[in-house]
């Protein structure tokens, strides 16, 4: 019975702490069979630190799907610097890469020295000394994760980025909505806005400083632009009808959106400085969910002009819109990959609503999620992962899948629904 008591106490603490800060936790749901074996040795001097930096790095690398970290219990040697690494020891554990490090307390924080070793090549790849204040140890761990990730994969790490998301609780007239920003690992959540009216569709400005979103706080939808750090905001649009689906141009000067002020929802582009709106689409069907191409030259959007929703691409140069999805009868809410080569979207398959990937110029549509009530895909700035909203039991949770579909993880909240994730751009 002692264990039951402990479990209950744990549940109580979990409940209380999650209620206080609404952090998301991570559960890896599928590991990639091509993940690289890596060892992240606990850092010397880490026992006295408020955060386990090596563990944060390990969790980051595992979540990326690119790495399969060695469990700590399997490490019978714990070197803290390159000179002490016995390559044979780690080779016998089938580890290809090894991270070692040590931390020292300084006046205002910590000095963390890490080194990345190539075990099969028997060489030191990189090393760096990072200083961090006591309350930014997680930030330092994300920075180190980014360095390791890029050195091995040649892809820029996205561990120092953030996600915005919306929470909802209750039903009908008694609901509470929240807009939050958290680190990419779900921690350090900060409230941006709460309301008893719906909040939707957060979108990051390209500089990562502002969020555009839809709020019903005036009892009808309006689009707001809010500075995340100062909280300062403006109401950008409040036309009759739908004011929805804001998305920033890559230069940060314009926002594409869906407005129904002239009848049915059409795509418009708002000039943020002079507040003028230019109508882009002209027809009698639904046009919504725009996404701006990384090169700024075209927009994806959802339209039901052919009957059901399909993805179209509008060229800002020619003013022409071409349908680009042809698989199935429901394809919606598309987003470009950062290199513009692929689109990620919600596809209705015979199993349900799933995240899918397709080459932008056509080609086969490939379902990459395993869940079937998926919404709101948002691509990491390095293109390796897609975060999206789905359901776990009766709760809305965030989930992420690697762009190739090989690995995935889930970020459930302790209570209520989490939805509408938006992955930030690179922030440094």
């Amino acid at each position, binding site marked *: 019975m002692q264990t039951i008591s402990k479990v209950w106490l744990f549940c*109580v603490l979990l409940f209380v702490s999650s209620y206080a800060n609404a952090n998301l936790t991570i559960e890896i749901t599928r590991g990639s069979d091509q993940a690289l074996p890596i060892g992240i040795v606990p850092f010397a001097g880490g026992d006295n630190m408020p955060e386990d930096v090596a563990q944060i790095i390990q969790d980051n690398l595992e979540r990326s799907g690119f790495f399969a970290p060695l469990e700590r219990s399997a490490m019978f040697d714990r070197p803290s610097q390159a000179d002490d690494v016995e390559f044979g020891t780690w080779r016998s554990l089938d580890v290809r890469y090894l991270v070692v490090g040590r931390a020292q307390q300084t006046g205002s924080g910590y000095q963390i020295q890490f080194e990345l070793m190539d075990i099969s090549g028997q060489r030191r790849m990189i090393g760096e000394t990072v200083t961090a204040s006591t309350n930014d140890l997680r930030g330092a761990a994300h920075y180190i994760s980014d360095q390791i990730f890029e050195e091995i994969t040649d892809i820029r790490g996205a561990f120092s980025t953030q996600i915005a998301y919306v929470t909802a609780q209750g039903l009908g007239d008694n609901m509470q909505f929240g807009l939050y920003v958290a680190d990419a690992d779900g921690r350090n959540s900060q409230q941006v806005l709460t309301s008893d009216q719906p909040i939707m569709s957060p979108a990051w400005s390209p500089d990562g400083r502002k969020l555009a979103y839809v709020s019903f706080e005036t009892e009808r*939808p309006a689009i707001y632009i809010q500075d995340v750090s100062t909280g300062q905001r403006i109401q950008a649009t409040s036309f009759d009808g739908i004011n929805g689906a804001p998305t920033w141009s890559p230069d940060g000067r314009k926002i594409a959106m869906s407005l129904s002020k002239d009848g049915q929802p059409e795509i418009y582009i708002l000039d943020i400085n002079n507040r003028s709106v230019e109508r882009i689409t002209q027809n009698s069907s*639904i046009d919504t969910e725009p996404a701006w191409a990384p090169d700024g030259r075209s927009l994806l959007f959802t339209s039901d002009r052919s009957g059901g*929703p399909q993805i179209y691409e509008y060229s800002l140069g020619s003013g022409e819109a071409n349908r680009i999805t042809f698989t199935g009868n429901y394809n919606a809410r598309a987003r470009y990959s950062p290199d513009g080569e692929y689109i990620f979207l919600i596809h209705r398959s015979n199993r349900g609503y799933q995240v899918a990937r397709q080459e932008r110029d056509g080609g086969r549509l490939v379902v990459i999620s395993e869940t079937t009530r998926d919404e709101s895909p948002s691509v990491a700035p390095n293109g390796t992962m897609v975060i999206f909203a789905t359901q776990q039991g009766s709760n809305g949770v965030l989930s992420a899948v690697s762009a190739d579909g090989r690995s995935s993880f889930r970020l459930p909240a302790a209570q209520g629904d989490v939805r509408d994730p938006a992955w930030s751009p690179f922030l440094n």
Partner: protein
Amino acid sequence: MQLKPLARSLAVALSIVVIAGCSSTGGTQDGDSYGSQDGSGTGTSTSGAGTGGQYGSTSGSGAGAGQQADSRIPEVRTIHFDFDRDTIKSEYESVVMAHARYLRANPNSRVVLHGHTDERGTREYNMALGERRANAVQRFLNIQGVSPSQMSVVSYGEERPVASGQSESAYAQNRRVVFNY
């Protein structure tokens, strides 16, 4: 039983809070039942009396049980739709007609038509579908002689469900247009 009394009661209390939090509007979820509660939210800034699929009879104006059909707001204020459709089903035509009569007889009265969808599909596309449903009701009322100046439309898409869960009956309750006076 080693469980300490304090820990146990705290745990029980918390589990009750959790359960209550999950079903705070239980019992009024059925959009087809004739509730007698005030349909307006408690302590919220939302305006719509009678929303949430409840056919409140104590909210709104003229609470008396008068028989004059056109002097009080019709009690049934929610109509439901088939999946992916904005057609007003024949079983709800009399409901919409009653609202048309009321609005014609009370030209100073105004209604906001709230369009809603079930949770399936993407959020912003559902926002458009919810608007399509509310527009269909607005067109119907207009054809029945209600002045456009008495009507406006707000779509909530899938953002304000009245029933939770993934059952067909929950979905059916959530696909609705609500008349808000």
